[in-house]
């Protein structure tokens, strides 16, 4: 993208830069009127966009099909309207039904993809003997298998972690923490790349580096 030459374009990139700096003033300094202005502007704009998107989605996904003769879409429209009974003190209970249908159907649909990838494939991969028997392959095989065993033991929720399972669950917790530590480092690197992206934008708008 080249540096804009028209007034609207220049105004756009400078507005973005100023708002970005207003938001950054929070971690770099403290809560201040500039941050508050950017905060309220952002929340208001996001709400406006959400309202427009919701209207457009409702029109496209429900109203247009109904007007086109697809009567079945009346059902979700009715369920949607039922949510608004939350504002009535006498009929608030009506709003529970669409939520129950929403949650129940979603969980039912979600269940079909759980057992094979999340349980069986994981077990199979854990107990499949490595093709190569060099030290690292064997170490990984044993580490993953025992690590999985101890980590799953940690998540036995109806047994107190004492007696025979005290040390295995404690080891499981340590192994989980090692895994989460690796995750942490990975995400921190990703966040740093996001920060460098913002720094790059700052330098581009100030024309220190090319856009």
């Amino acid at each position, binding site marked *: 993208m080249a540096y804009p030459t028209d007034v609207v374009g220049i105004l756009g990139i400078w507005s973005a830069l100023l708002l970005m700096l207003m938001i950054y003033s929070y971690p770099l300094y403290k809560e201040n009127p500039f941050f508050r202005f950017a905060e309220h502007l952002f929340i208001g704009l996001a709400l406006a966009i959400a309202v427009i998107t919701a209207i457009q989605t409702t029109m496209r996904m429900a109203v247009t099909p109904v007007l086109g003769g697809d009567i079945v879409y009346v059902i979700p429209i009715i369920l949607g309207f039922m949510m608004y009974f939350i504002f009535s003190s006498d009929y608030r209970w009506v709003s529970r039904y669409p939520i129950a249908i929403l949650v129940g159907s*979603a*969980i039912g649909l979600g269940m079909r993809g759980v*057992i094979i990838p999340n349980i*069986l494939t994981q077990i199979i991969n*854990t107990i499949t003997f490595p093709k190569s028997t060099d030290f690292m392959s064997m170490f990984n095989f044993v580490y993953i298998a025992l690590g999985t065993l101890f980590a799953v033991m940690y998540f036995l929720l*109806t047994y107190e972690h004492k007696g025979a399972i005290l040390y295995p669950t404690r080891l499981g917790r340590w192994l989980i923490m090692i895994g989460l*530590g690796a995750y942490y480092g990975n995400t921190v690197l990703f966040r740093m790349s996001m920060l460098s992206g913002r720094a790059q934008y700052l330098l581009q708008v100030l024309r220190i580096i090319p856009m």
Partner: protein
Amino acid sequence: MAIIITGRVTAFIFLLACLALFYIFMSLSKKGGKVSIRTFPAVAAIPEAVGRAAEMGKPIYYSTGYAMETISNPDQGPQTLAGISILGYVTKLAARSGVKIHYFTPIADSLPLVEETMRNAYLEEGKPEDFDPTSIHFFSGQSPMLTATLGFMQRERPAANIFMGGFYYEAVVMGEAGNTIGAMQISGTANTHQMPFFIATCDYAMISEELYAASAAIAQNPDILGTIKGEDIMKLVILALIGIGFIISFTGTTFLIDLLRM
């Protein structure tokens, strides 16, 4: 069309076993069978957090996170529901101590449930007039909620922040902002990618299924307690399969793997 599809038989048996176990333990639990959930320091710390807020005269901040902005997401929805269940408990304690609780969410379809839960909590404490619906703050997205949270934390300086639900990138920002103001922080999420941040920034953190178990222990709902017990039995079966499979793999036997692939 074949009724029995190769590669799905074991999965089907697993599903049936799960359902049977859930049914058995739900029935037992309803008939008065005791299902005890192990102690979670994070849950035990909730009264301390509310007490701290009461002593300081400051509010409590509570959020169930972004959770894909819907309770119909099969991964995130249950976390939000668990978070709302714990919210009911926290609201009760807050109502009892006269502490104001502010709930932040971008999940529009959870609002009726949240309002009902909080209203009931105040009602059960005999203070229905203290319930303020404006303490439920809805935002139209993840980032707006996060930005509002940052401002709220600096302006209101809550004594305790409780994060229970499906959190995404907001976890670390909220946790860090709460740390800056010295709030006591308790969290729980089943989103693996955000657990490290909660562990690093919060005083107490629950990871993964601990969130669901905590909500079951608090609600003492026999159905949920029964499913937790059933899940534990399935975990023991999985542990046995991994243990046996690991040992016999050294002999070159692939019998168990073939069985699981059936």
